[in-house]
């Protein structure tokens, strides 16, 4: 079975860490590093869940999410947003544009795992 997670992130070490955590729990983890083509990647790969970093090369995670939420078929897609900018206004902005969950880096592995499980249960 294996639900599919699309990880949109540009830091190689972080990608490796998340991939390790989620794969071990049985997820199929696919990755994408470039902001500009990220939205298309979501459409193409049609994952069950998207983990989306805010600070991406060429396009911000907020823009990508806004674009995704504008499409009816993607409006309900669970999106977990990650940011290294831990300010309150970042969280508010993320929630306003429709992030399902918002997590600040660094996070604990257990926290990440729990969030992903919870999001998929709701699907």
């Amino acid at each position, binding site marked *: 079975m294996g639900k599919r997670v699309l990880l949109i992130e*540009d*830091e190689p*070490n972080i990608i*490796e860490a998340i991939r*390790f955590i989620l794969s071990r729990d049985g997820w199929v983890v696919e990755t994408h590093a470039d902001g500009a083509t990220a939205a298309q990647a979501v459409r193409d790969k049609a994952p069950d869940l998207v983990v989306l970093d805010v600070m991406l090369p060429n396009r911000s995670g907020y823009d990508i999410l806004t674009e995704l939420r504008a499409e009816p078929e993607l409006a309900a897609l669970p999106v977990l947003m990650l940011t290294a900018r831990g*300010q309150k206004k970042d969280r508010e902005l993320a929630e306003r544009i429709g992030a399902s969950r918002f997590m600040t880096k*660094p*996070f604990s592995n257990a926290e990440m795992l729990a969030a992903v499980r919870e999001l998929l249960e709701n699907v």
Partner: protein
Amino acid sequence: MVAFNVLILALVLYVALLFSVAFIAERRARAGRFGWLRSPWVYTLSLSIYCTAWTFYGAVGYAARSGLEFVTIYLGPTLVMVGWWWVVRKLVRIGRSQRITSIADLISSRYGKSTQLGVIVTLLAVIGTTPYIALQLQSVSLSFSVFARQAPGQLYLADQNATALWVAVGLAVFTILFGTRNLDANERHYGVVTAIALEAVVKLVALVAVGVFVVWGIAGGPADIFARIDQSDIATWQMRPGRWATMIFLSGAAFLTLPRMFQVLVVENTGEEHLFTASWAFPAYLMVMSLFVIPIAVVGLQMMPAGANPDLFVLTLPLSLDRGVLATLAFLGGFSSATSMVVVAAIALSTMVSNHIVMPIWLNMKRQGGATMSGDVRHVVLTARRASIAGVLALGYLYFRLSGGSEALAAIGIVSFAGVSQALPALLGGIFWRGGTRVGAAAGLVTGFVVWAYTLFLPSFGAGAILPAELLQSGPWGLGWLRPQALFGVSGLDPVVHAVFWSMVLNTLAYVAGSLISFPQPVERLQGAQFVNVFEHSAALRSGAHSGVATAEDLLVMAQRIMGAEQAQSLFQRAAAQQGKHGYLPDTTMEFVDSLERELAGSVGAATAHAMLSQIAAGASVSVEDLMAVADEAAQILEYSSQLEAKSEELSRTARQLREANEKLTALSVQKDAFLSQISHELRTPMTSIRAFSEILMEGRALEPAQLQRYSGIIHEETLRLTRLLDDLLDLSVLENGQLTLQRQLAMLVDVLDRAVETSFPANEQQLMLVQRNRAREALPLFTDSDRLRQVFINLISNARKYCDSDTPELRIEVQRRGDDIFVDFIDNGSGIATASQTVIFEKFSRLSDQAAAGGAGLGLAICHQIMDKLGGSIAYLPGQGGAAFRVRLPRLKQQAVNAAGMAVQQQK
């Protein structure tokens, strides 16, 4: 027999001495070295201009004709000075606090600054003084002709008219030179006053010398003199109480009202406390002056041939006994008496004429002409002054020619005294009675003047000269009670007593009546209160305090015209409140005047404000009204509006600056937020990896050894990245805050580059990039912080290594000298930096690539920029080189330092 030439020589020398004394005193005063110029002794001696030629020569004649009566001429002033506390002190205080320039000014000022009163008093003074000046001219020419008669064959100067003309011209020159040098600060003429003080000594010495000669040289000492007096007619002389009282009154009144006396007594007074000395010293001076009058008269009457003019005994007695030196001294004494009087009288009269007649007319003409009065008022005043002096002396000379040289000097003096005394009721009433009004003063002055002219002045020319003999005999139109010398049927009186009595009585009556029936204007009330109560609102003005005091009201009036009523009033009210006073009139303290000047300077410019205030505050001759007119000019309004314009410009400039500062602050705040956010990101990113992998390792689950090694390697790598970031941040912080201490020393560029290249390539990566250098060209000495410079080079080389995307990466390091600079270019063969990005690469966190592998936080070039700034060089992106290219500019070592470097290098070797 004294040679006539010797007399001429002595005279010339004496005149030269007077000129130089006046000149020196004036120069001292200008230099601010007042010293003895302000001594009470100089003041007292200057009062001696009361003793004119009339006193010097005429007193003896007076005594020969009327016995002791001549003493009355001295008693009046003596009484006034002894009673200085009541009248003179008040006059001096008012003169100082109100910046009075003349007696006409005082009366005009007291009665509401009336122009008409000023004109009346001025006319009175001119008419009263002109005969007196004529008298002095006459005395000099008379005494001169006495000498000339003694020297037959040398008659070329014996023409009395010519002598008088020469004297008049000479005096005019002296007076113009020292009396109108400037209008600075006040009306004091130190040069003139000092010269007349010297003359006072000369005339005293001369008269005493003649007296001593008469008593001990001709007679056999005091006992013999008393015996001779007893034998003479003078012993049988009877005292006439009415005439005595009149004469004492007259001389006292004249002492206060004569323009020249007012000038030295009040205007030239430099300190109220001088009055204390003068109150006894001046009477003493008069006493000494009068000591030998009777002996000289008696001996003269006995020894000189019958018909000899007793007015000239002082001169003719020594001459007849062939005492040439003594006679010359006597002549100089008489000359001194005459000239000092004329000089001061001319100054006083010219001040009055120019201030009360010429200036008002000039201002009026200007106003009617519609022209703006922005010209130099002072220049006009000075010109008016000089013309007035010449005019006054010309009048005196004219009178001398017309009167034909009456032989009795004393008679003219008394007529003069009676004339100027007409100002007394208005003067005394003005300073003691607040009820006195302008109408009253004018009525009194005109009445007194007319009565005086009718009863004394006109008849003094002799029956039929001006007034027909018939009128003198039976009155006008046959009205007996209007006979000039027997008004209202009062006949049998001495003409002088009669004239003084009627003129003063009618004058005073008219003054009081006029004051009672008229209603004073507000200004009159105010001035009246200020004059009468002068002691209550003015501090004693001691010598040295030459700031002068303006009335707050004058200042307010002027300030209102310049600043506008509302602003000026609130300014004055504030100042008054600060002094603990209610209302709008603060005390005119130095501080207040200074602050006012500053305020005014804001409207009319500092120079103008200062000039206006110093004129008001120091009582210069330009009257306040004149200044008001000047202040009213359109020019002022223009100035004011241009000031407003400047102010609004200044305001908008300030607003602009504020806006810019605000924008800057906002930008800074945004920048700070962005920076913090960026820092947060840069710190959290490595920490995320570290945390994730360390948790994985902590779980203790079995991991493959390769995995274990890899994950712990990542943790290690990320901690290094964090450390680098923190190092860079600290570096940048130090650089930006300017806390960096440079360790400058001599270094060779080639060495710095060698070490930079070495450090930039870890041992296993050297082959990955080709570095091209020309080490020979790099052999340049530097005086710099080589560690910091190396840091810059390492940064540039590392960037090239990390970001150069060529398959065969190459880096060229080129060094060239250009002028005073050294250029070090770092050029790689990659694809370079996009034009749009070239401008931002030196900003913080401007990392263009997203490769975390690059290992930097995007602070490197920002740090380089800061360092080069500190080292006195610069760093810039060099476009158009194919790949990424940076140019480092270094300041070249100065030739001197190169030599020092060479030596240092040699020593090291």
